[in-house]
């Protein structure tokens, strides 16, 4: 089981280092940690930091070329494009991978 996420240009994908927390990114990271625990291999590419790696993926490069920034993030599940333009939820990913979600569920963060 393998997931690859191609992020839009981010200062960092943690969602923590900017002027305010980015709950979408934090939630994604929580999901990734849970998936890794369940034996899923997760790769992540941030356009600001890994421009070469992102552009060497033909599918992603084409999507970016065709649709521009709004196509990002692109999520691959087992080599196939699963979602573009938004991050998938933990449940969606579990479903497509055919695994049971862990008891702990990532919840949207309410800060500020």
């Amino acid at each position, binding site marked *: 089981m393998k997931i690859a996420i191609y992020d839009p240009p981010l200062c960092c994908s943690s969602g923590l280092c900017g002027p305010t927390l980015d709950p979408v990114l*934090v939630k994604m990271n929580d999901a990734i940690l849970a998936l890794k625990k369940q034996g899923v291999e997760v790769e992540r590419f941030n356009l*600001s*930091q890994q421009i070469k790696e992102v552009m060497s993926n033909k599918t992603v490069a084409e999507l970016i070329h065709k649709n521009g920034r709004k196509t990002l993030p692109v999520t691959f599940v087992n080599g196939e494009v699963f979602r573009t333009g938004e991050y998938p939820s933990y449940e969606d990913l579990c479903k497509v991978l055919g695994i049971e979600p862990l008891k702990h569920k990532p919840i949207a963060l309410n800060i500020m």
Partner: protein
Amino acid sequence: MLWMKEVIMTKYLFFSGKGGVGKTTMASATAIHCATDGKKTLIVTTDPASNLADVFEQEIGHKITPIKGIDNLHAMEIDPDEATREYKERIIGPFREVMPEDVIASLEENLSGPCTTEMASFDRFIDFMEGDEYDIIVFDTAPTGHTIRLLELPVDWSKHIEESAKGSGQTCLGPVQSIQDSKEKYDRATALLKDPVRTTFIFVMRPEALSLYETLRASKELETIGVKSGEVILNGILPEEVCDISFFKKKYYAQQNIIRQTEKTIAQPKRHMFLRDNEVKGVSALKDIGRELFTGKKPHYETERISTAQFVPTFERPDIDSLFLPDGQTKAIFLTGKGGVGKTSISCIAALHIAQKGVKTLLVTTDPAAHIGEVLDVKIGSRPEKITENLFAVMVNQQEAFQEYKERVLNDARGKYSEEMLATMEEELNSPCTEEMAAFDKFIQFIEGKDYEVVVFDTAPTGHTLRLLDLPFDYAKQVEMMAGAAESAEVKKTAQNRFRDIINTLRDKKRTVFTLVLYPESTPIMESYRAMLDLKEAGIETQLVIANMVLQEEVCSNYFFQNRRRMQMKYLEEIKEKFNLPVLQFPLMQEEIKGLFHLRVAVATL
């Protein structure tokens, strides 16, 4: 003068010290000396408000520039914006053709964040420490607090990279594998800084209590990161023969007292440099300084008493109360200017003046090398401390602010996320960018709060202040680019509103008063003028200039001080024309302000 010969043996020379001590002058004179000695020499400044161009009287900028009239000498002023642009172009350049415009734009915006700027400047700085092109590289480093931060960064960063490699593998500075190269580079830089065979740190100080305190503190700070301080230059010593006027005699004895204390408390070799009767500008004046520095030849002074009428510019007295007193809303007063112009004393005077009018006032310092505590003669902490009726003081401590911020974020997240996620968050929050964010957050809380009617900011030197004030603009842009789905929308809006409010407050002349503090000499004027233009570009109008340390006619009764006063008057006229703002003059005091009693006396002269 053996010790200076030893200094020249190392390839890298770092000049350190509080702003206004004559660091740039000493560094430039040293660079000229080395170059004339036949060594291929480069002088580099990392100060965002550099004075190198003013001292050499030629344009330098963000490129290696040959200095006119001196073979073998080159200079460069690292410009953080330019460094960032170069850094960005290295990354984006190759993909410019193959990517849609909106992606390129988004990348460019993203790589304009504060983290990139810090990283890019530092990267450029290290590049100079790696090359073999020069025999001698002189670093006219930025003021102390800033310097230390810059030097500590490589330590922080390599630690940060190491820790992240164990965890999620993503760091604020980029994915671990792609910055392994940089880690080695930063480690090499730190090793070099700590190697006395290759590197010497030269502290420049004035014979004043604050300057001595500052030098001791800075050299201790350097030692904690493993850097040994090298030598000390005591600059601006009053020559005994011209201090036969009682006002200056007292100053002379005060200086001699500090010189004795310096000899006692600092073990490193010391070099004495005397005050000149005119300012040091241009190559020939620098050569003269070099002679004194390297041969110990004291300059010649005219000692006769003369009294000639001289030109004195006239000023309208500004209505400081209408500028400083609040008008229904909390008022923020920022005092900024080159290091050493007396910002701290002036801030304390202004704050006490306002407090005495029955207005609840908070004095905030953001200078990492804060000495409000010394002026008030009270220990200042990270919580507001009552000084006297209506007057409170606080210091924004970057480390403490960072801890507080981290705790707050983690507390909010506790219970909402898995333990693993919390651990990852904790690790991710340990980044230099978060530190800066936290300090800004703390600082801005004082403006947002309603606890005080007036908040007076004794800000760090110009470059540092401008950087801090740039942050809300940077952050507003960054928030704009958040991942953006529906869930982020609420957070995004709150943050956007907050930064917009901050920017509006800074731009509102009724709520924010920017004051430039300077003394009437060329470099403080140039630096303040550039700051005024930078602020204007951000939509912020400067409202007042305070000309400090003005020599009073009645005490300048010999050639030496009359000459200095003539120079000051010329520059006061320049201030009047250049800034076109109300100017408040403040006389040179006979003694340094220490304690409330002294401060009250100073306020009375306002």
